[in-house]
Each structure stands twice: as C-alpha cells, then as structure tokens.
C-alpha cells in the first residue's frame, strides 16, 4: 500500500512536471482542446435552442373541435371524456358557448359595430369548442382521424361536430414533423463527425508531447519500470490538458453567450443563450470538464501505447 501511494504520488508529480516543462506543447494541446470543447458546448447550446424552439412551435399546434350550437353540454362533455381517454392526448380544454361569447366580447371590446350586431341577434351564435393538445405533434393525425370517424358514424342521426380545424393545419403540421425529425438526425450526425475530428486532432497533439519524451520512456523501460508507471504521467498530463481547456472554455462562454444572448432571443423563439448558460452552468461544467478529461486521458493512453511496446 505504501508502495502504491508512493508510486501514485510520483506519477502525479511527474505528470505536473511534464505539463510545465513542455510548455509549448501543453499550450497547443490546450488550444486544440478548447476548440474541441467549444464545439461540444456549442452543440449543447444548439440542441437547447432547437429543442426550445420546437417545444414552442409544438405548443402552438393544436386541434379545435367546433360544435354546432344545438349540441348539448352533456354530449360535448362525454366526447371530452372519450378524447381524454386516448393515450396520445395531453390535454383537452372545454370552452362552453357562454365562455366563447364572453371571450368574443372581450376581443371585440373596442368594436362597437360588431358588438351591436351581436346584440341584434339576441341569441348566442357561437358554438362550444374543445381544444385538444397531443403529447407529440406526430399524434395529431391519429386524433383527427378518430374524431372524423366518430363524426361520420353518428352522421346518420345528428352530428354535434360542426368542423375540425386540424385539416386546415395539416400541411403545416406535417412539414413541422418532418423538420423536427431531420433536425434531430442531422444534429446527431454533426455531433458525431465533429467529435471524431476533434478527438483525432487532440490525439495527435498529445502524441507529439509524448514523442518529445521518448528518451525518457526508453530509459524507464530499460530500468524495468512498470507500464502503468511509464504511462501514468502522460495520462495525468492529458487529464490536465482537458481540465485546463475546459475551465478556459467555460470562462470564454460567458462573454460569448452574453454577446449572442440578445440576438438568439430575437431570432429563436424566446431562448436567451446567456441566461440559459447561467441557469445550466453546473451541467455545462460537468459536460465540459468531464469530456475534456476523458478525451485527454484516452488520447494519452492510446498515444503512449506506441512507445510502450517492449
């Protein structure tokens, strides 16, 4: 145990020395890693922007079922119950004829002519509505089909449904579903490609750092040092490249997101990257320091292997 801790201490110490001594190589490794980590961080922002934009749009999509004025409230409420029973449905809101009238009056509060015309009618011309929200945009189609089937079934007797506005939005909803789908797929591919490129560059930079130390490695091998003892300091240095690069990246993200914050808020619906960054700083810290340390350590292990062959 004493032997182990002495070894560990020496490995860490040597790792620190390697880090400082090869100052220029350390610097270039860190710069490359900063680029890598910025890409990773940028992708986190991108997916956040994408997701929040999509959620916003998704929330704006819904189905309105308009009922004929003669439809009884109990009929509507029983239909509401049935719809709520569907697994795809997230929420159903009922607006009664009276509520619809109140809303109408409110929206047209400054429109005397319309209000007068409404008063002339004496009767309430507005039908009740059900507003349906699905859990996922792709499910609107199914819900709409369910409703039309129901309508046609009861068509013989007396259909209470006046119209379903989904079919007017259908093309827009279809397009949105497709965009969401391909955006997710494209995002995944971009993440993979960029991550692979970044890892390869980092790997090569660290290999250069190890190449500089090849004399030291050959001497270590000749005096019978354990593989783990030889490799250890490089892994420590790799971890340090990753950690330092991650911290610098985290600091750089402050002015970068601050500067971009207003622009993104206007361009994308409601997401300010600066406040998002502040709110999720812990998450960013973990992701960047974690992936930085991982890339550094793994690159070091692989890069050192070449010089450790007996």
């Amino acid at each position, binding site marked *: 145990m004493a032997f182990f801790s002495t070894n560990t201490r020496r490995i860490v110490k040597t790792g620190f020395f390697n880090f400082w001594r090869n100052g220029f190589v350390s610097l270039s490794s860190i710069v490359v890693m900063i680029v890598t980590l910025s890409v990773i961080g940028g992708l986190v922002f991108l997916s956040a922007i994408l997701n929040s934009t999509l959620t916003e749009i998704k929330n704006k999509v819904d189905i309105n079922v308009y009922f004929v004025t003669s439809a009884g409230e109990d009929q509507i409420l029983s239909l509401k119950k049935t719809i709520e029973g569907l697994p795809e449905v997230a929420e159903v809101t009922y607006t009664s004829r009276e509520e619809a009238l109140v809303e109408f009056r409110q929206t047209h509060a400054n429109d005397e002519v319309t209000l007068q015309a409404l008063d002339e009618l004496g009767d309430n011309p507005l039908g009740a509505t059900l507003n349906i929200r699905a859990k996922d945009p792709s499910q609107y189609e199914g819900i709409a089909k369910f409703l039309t089937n129901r309508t046609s079934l009861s068509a013989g007797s007396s259909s209470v449904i006046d119209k379903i506005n989904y079919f007017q939005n259908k093309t827009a909803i279809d397009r949105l579903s497709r965009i969401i789908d391909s955006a997710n797929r494209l995002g995944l591919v971009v993440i993979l490609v960029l991550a692979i490129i970044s890892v390869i560059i980092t790997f090569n930079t660290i290999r250069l750092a190890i190449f500089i130390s090849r*004399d030291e490695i050959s001497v270590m091998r000749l005096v019978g040092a354990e593989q783990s003892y030889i490799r250890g300091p490089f892994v420590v240095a790799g971890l340090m490249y990753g950690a330092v690069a991650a911290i610098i990246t985290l600091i750089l993200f402050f002015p970068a997101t601050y500067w971009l914050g207003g622009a993104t808020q206007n361009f994308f619906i409601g997401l300010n990257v600066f406040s998002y960054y502040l709110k999720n700083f812990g998450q960013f810290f973990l992701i960047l320091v974690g992936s930085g340390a991982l890339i550094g350590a793994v690159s070091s292990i692989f890069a050192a292997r070449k010089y450790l062959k007996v």
Partner: protein
Amino acid sequence: MIYFDKVSKIYPDNSVALENVTFTISPKEFVSVVGHSGAGKTTLVKMLLAEDKPSEGSVFYGSQNVQTLSKKELNELRRKIGVVFQDYRLLPYKNIYENIAFSMEAAGRTDEEIEADVPHVLDLVNLGNKIWNFPHELSGGEKQRAAIARAIVNQPEVVVADEPTGNLDPVNTYEIVQILKKINDLGTTVILTTHNKGVIDSLGKRVITMENGRIVRDDKSGRYVL
C-alpha cells in the same frame, strides 16, 4: 547464470547479425565481448535484455527463458540488469541527482532509499562534487560515470556496458574501466563490449571474440586478437 543456446538472429533483409552463438556467463564474472563494428556485439546485448527476439535458439537468465517472460517478469529481469551505453542516455533536463533518482523511482524504491543511495553511488564513481550539475555541464568521462552510477544504483546482478568508452579519450577510458573493475570486485557480474585493444589487454579477464555474428575465440584470460 546467463546462457546463450545456439542463438541466431537474421534480420528480414537476410543480413545475419548472430549465427549459432553459444556461451555461458557465471555469476561474478567479468566478460569482455570484442569485435569490429557490426560483429554482433550490440545484438547480443539486445537479446539479453529481450529488446529483440532471436530468430533461432534461446537466451536464459538463471533458469528463465528470456523470450517467454511476461511483461511483468521482464520488468523484474530488467531491474536485475544495469545498462550503460556509448551515448550515455542521460536525460538532459534533469540534473545528475535527478537522473539517478529517476531510475530508482521507476524501480519503485522509497524516498529514504533514494536520498541515502544517490550520494553514495555518486561517491563511488567519483562524481560527489557534480551531484547538482546538469549533463551538459559535464565532460564525456563524467557523463559516462554518471550513467554507470545510474546503472548500478539499483544493485543489479549484472551490469552490461555496451561500448562505454567508445567516445572517450584514453585517460577517461582508463577511469571507466577501473570503475567497472571495482563494481565487479564488489560482486556484480560485468559484461563489457568494446573494440578497444588497450582496455582488453589491461584487464586480463575472459574475452569472447566475435566476427561476422559468430564467436571465433573464447579465452579465459584473454588478449585482444583480431
């Protein structure tokens, strides 16, 4: 202790470095291996350290076949063999103390041992006054003495010196050979490769003479004959 059994080494381009080499080295022996450049001296050393594998035959250290050792066993073997090279191979950015401490650390020795042994071993090679100097501040002979100190500090059973005097003038050569003799007197087996006639003749120890990868002479108390 060390036994080469019909060892041959043929490189992929069909050049023959060693051909059917068989010899035994006993504990505490001082053996010189002589021959022209390219006679196979360095290949011999590489076989012993398992830095390279023989094409045919086997190399034994004690009862162990060097070529079949696991990595761990090989590391243990290398700790029993101290190596000195013609080009010193000191680490340039470490001072002499650190160079020697470095090899002790790699062998897993404690800090107390390192602090006690490094000055001691440097005294043994007459470098006690250069302990904090860097390699570039030392003469060739001093560098080679530091390299010897590094080779013997882990108290190996065998010291292999591959052309240690190749870059040195006669005075320094003499000093290095005296140190190797002293190490041998203290009970360590020494294998010295050289093509320096004066060194061999002054030693009066066993000499293995190589030519074109073969052993042509093996004299108990030999002289340099080529």
